[in-house]
């Protein structure tokens, strides 16, 4: 799936997909679910939460 196709399926711009991939933007939970839905997999398979990054 191309970035443009994913963007269209998730209802966002391609630049947002690029930013998420590059770690420059943390999507909302709603968008994260939509992206996971576009891939047809559970959200945990697409997004991982690194607690150490938040200093926790």
């Amino acid at each position, binding site marked *: 799936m191309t970035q443009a196709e994913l*963007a269209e399926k998730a209802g966002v*711009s391609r630049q947002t997909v690029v930013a998420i991939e590059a770690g420059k*933007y943390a999507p909302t939970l709603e968008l994260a679910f939509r992206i996971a839905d576009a891939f047809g997999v559970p959200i945990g398979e697409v997004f991982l939460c690194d607690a150490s990054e938040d200093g926790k």
Partner: protein
Amino acid sequence: MSYQEKRTITMILTGIILLSSFVLYAVLRIQADIAVLGDLKFWAIAMLVFIGIGIGATILTQILFHIVFAVSVAVVEERDHAGCDEGKVETIIKREMVEDERDKTIELKSNSIGYAFSGFGFLAGLILLAVTGSAVYLLFSLFGAFSIGSILEGFVKLNLYRKGC
């Protein structure tokens, strides 16, 4: 460069041109002795006129920008695929113009910085008023702070698009 970034650059340029025009207008009027610095009514009218021109210019620039953007998409499509499919061009334009949650987040963050700058401008104006006793400095400070605040907002927005938010 995305549609939103290009749009932001257009708005920054419009803001810079308008502010420069006002500064030039003010300096020329004062130098030619057409206006005195303490004439509050004259400056208030001049600022109102420039705000009106600013709103008009922003709307016009956005319309022109959209036309130029649509034409450039069509030209690129024609060049790359030898044949301009109107439907495809329309789809590309719609796809590029999508405003999503990231755009709204960036908008909110940049707005808050713009408002903060305007707030500091008001504070600076009050200090100038307290020191000089002339309300015209407050007026200039407010006008400048809002104008520069809006330009700054654009730069912050661009930075957030580039560096992430």
